[in-house]
């Protein structure tokens, strides 16, 4: 079956035998975007988080057939060195990553949160950012999330 969607503002169409294939593998192995990571395959860790129509989705457990006609954003489409997303900017300012493997998932989850709520409290963060980081960069993440919210609010004004 053919499934058409937009990824990082580019229209694509993939030909796939099984529409139940997780979106993660289509993105990594067919569209060759490796920034979205595999962590557990059961939506339990958040390493594969990306945006479907601006909502954070754990792509290891999201069938590709549901992507039909939707707008998908991955870490590669969120920002780049010349034009970083506020979350990426904040992550750089706070020097968050260690091994870096889970970081795209956290950054995507945070970007989705800030779209809904650009002034999250510590409680909002605790409830919404529930990905896993084994290097435990959480302490800097919390600071970076508040900083990203600040940058987001500044951009809006």
């Amino acid at each position, binding site marked *: 079956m053919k499934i058409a969607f937009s990824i990082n503002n580019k229209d694509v169409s993939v030909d796939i*035998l*099984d529409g139940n*294939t*997780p979106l993660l*593998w289509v993105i*990594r*192995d067919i569209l060759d975007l*490796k*920034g*979205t*990571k*595999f*962590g*557990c*395959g*059961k939506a*339990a*860790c958040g*390493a594969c988080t990306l945006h479907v129509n601006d909502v954070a989705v754990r792509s290891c457990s999201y069938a590709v057939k549901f992507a039909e006609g939707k707008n998908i954003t*991955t*870490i*590669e489409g969120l*920002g*780049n*060195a010349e034009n*970083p997303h506020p979350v*990426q900017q904040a*992550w*750089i300012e706070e*020097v*968050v*990553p*260690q*091994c*870096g*493997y*889970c*970081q*795209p998932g956290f*950054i995507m989850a945070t970007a989705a949160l800030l779209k809904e709520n650009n002034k999250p409290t*510590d409680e909002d*963060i*605790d*409830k919404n*950012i*529930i990905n*896993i*980081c*084994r*290097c*435990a*960069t*959480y*302490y*800097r*993440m*919390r600071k970076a999330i508040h900083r990203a919210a600040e940058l987001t609010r500044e951009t809006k004004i």
Partner: protein
Amino acid sequence: MSKNISRRKFLVRGGLGTLGVLAIGTYVLRNPIRRQIIDFADSFIAPYSGTGTEPNLWFEITKNNTIVLHSPKVEMGQGTFTGLAQIAADELDINIDQIEVIAASTASGVVDSLGTGGSLSVASLWQPLREMAATMREMIKIEAAKKLQIPLANLSTKNGIVSSNNQQISYVDAIKEVTEWKIPDTPKLKDLKDYKLVGKPIARIDLKTKVFGNSIFGMDAEMENMLHAAIIRPEHIGATFKSANYQKAEKMPGIVKVVQIDDWVGIIAETYAQALAAKMEVDVEWNIPKIWTEEDIRTLISVGNGSEMVVQKEGNLLEKDDKNILEIEFKSPLGAHAQMEPNGAVASFKDGKITVILSTQVIGITQNQVAKAFAIDKDNVNIIPTYLGGGFGRRLNTSHAIQAVQLSKEIGRPVKYFFTRKEEFQNDMFRPPTHHIMKGKLNSDGLIENLEHHFASGNVAIDSTLMPGIAHTILGADFGAIRGGSIHYSAIKNIRSIQWHKTLPFATSWWRSLGLLANTFAIESFVDELALQSNKNPVTLRLAQIKDNEEGVRLKNVIEKAAKESKYSDEVVNGRAMGFACSTDTGTPCAQVAEVSIVNSEITVHKITCVMDCGIAVNPDQVKAQCEGAMIMAMSASMYEKMYIEDGQLQPTIFGPYDMALLKHTPKEINIHLLQGVDKPLPVGEPPLGPIAAAIGNAVRRITGQRLTEMPFKLS
């Protein structure tokens, strides 16, 4: 390549080789000497002991006049690439943006026989890397002198440029026609005060690539014409292959071949998703000789069971019938590495040559193992490491590289294979469970008269790829399991630390900080209990029990600093208490104070103060990042994590049920203070895992009266 080089100092110093020689030399000697060796192994910083004698193997000068360092240590989050870049750039006289660091492949010629671990990367490369970089700078100058026709003595270097009074040439222009290097003796190294980058909190050099999602991990590696594979392994402990039916799976879309080798079945497919789908349709029967239980494991790992080794012995053993003895038992569970990037490898076996790309902490060992498994010369095996999505000791074993090569050999094309999360949890090289009996007694002044640590653990160093069986024979103890097991209260007259060892029916091995986590928990919780019994401030009591030798003074300094910075108090204020604990690991003393309260019946850590003396902090910001991560990882291990055995299988097999610290559990305030008690960098990545569990437990004891004795912590 010119070989008329004087052997640079570090090459004759040896690393593990030295330990091996020393240990074998004293094999026949008696226990006290053996204990000295253990002390040595416990605190010894092994210098670089790999291959790559020529600086030009380490440094590659690009046409943009930048320098690429082929690092013998991999980057697994610990910030090593950044620290090494700072060290090298300072001696090379280049700026930080003129250096790039990549992990050396085995083919590069720079292979560290020790691999990356033990928190040794920066500490062990401090001397050799500076010598290499300084020599490389001289080599560039020699070429510049030839090109410019100016005496070497009249040249200086700065920002990647060689200059005289009136001429200058970039490094790359100076060397671009070189075919044979002249390698001089190592020049004098710069004074510490002249370093511009060492000691500065510069941003990680891999920061942006990781934030924009461009960094390549083992999972992201590919080879041309590659297939994907999934593997079925036994789920029961000790199970072996009996039979398999995979007729249905073979006919599924995308399936190229199903193979059965040793105790596993491999499914090779066009895509990984197809391989996984087919995996569900394979029926395998296993021989299961025994259904192991949680009780079996607990019985195996208990003080008094297995082989015994006296690790530390001062004065007398406590008398059995002494009524004044305080005795407390402590336990820690089986722990998983749970690194975020699953293990795996991309392998190609073609025309007698093997290439493997993977996340490994030990490229040299991976190379040896693969070469041996396929009976080919190791020069025909190239191991290419990537960024590691976490290491924590898990990637010191890379037997899966062999499986990936076997699959490639079967199908005649490159194959990428990696673990599912369930495989990862069931085939981890676990942190072994431990059991501790602490015994002690106060004297009439309320000081500690006797302190004894009797402890049992499964394998850590023993039988690991890094330290084969011989270590046990020679040393008598598992020197991974004894990390942190010695008592550092050197002024106590009567001390015992006695290890009991047993091998479990599944692999246990290196887990970040090894025995330190559980051993410090037991010792420091117990010392706190003695302080309560003695009615003494736990800081005062600790300080009174440490001798004023160099090690003791450094430990006292971190204790005093932590007490001062945290404003340590023994009192519970509004339900909030402080807990104090300290440890010394591989020569790095560390003290931590946790501020804790009980919120909705859960232990909540609000604030941690951490003081560590790691010598020179090459990058203070990354040293702090290691402290933050290590303390939260240790919190996670002591408060939430536990593997267990159910129906003969290791459980759980997914995050969530394997409960770990999340953002919400992280203290809102962490203050880290670094001391520099010696003028060299010491290990950083593991020492801060030591004190935190006891610090939390000691705080909880003050709030509730309950002494926490078992990880993961449960309030009664």
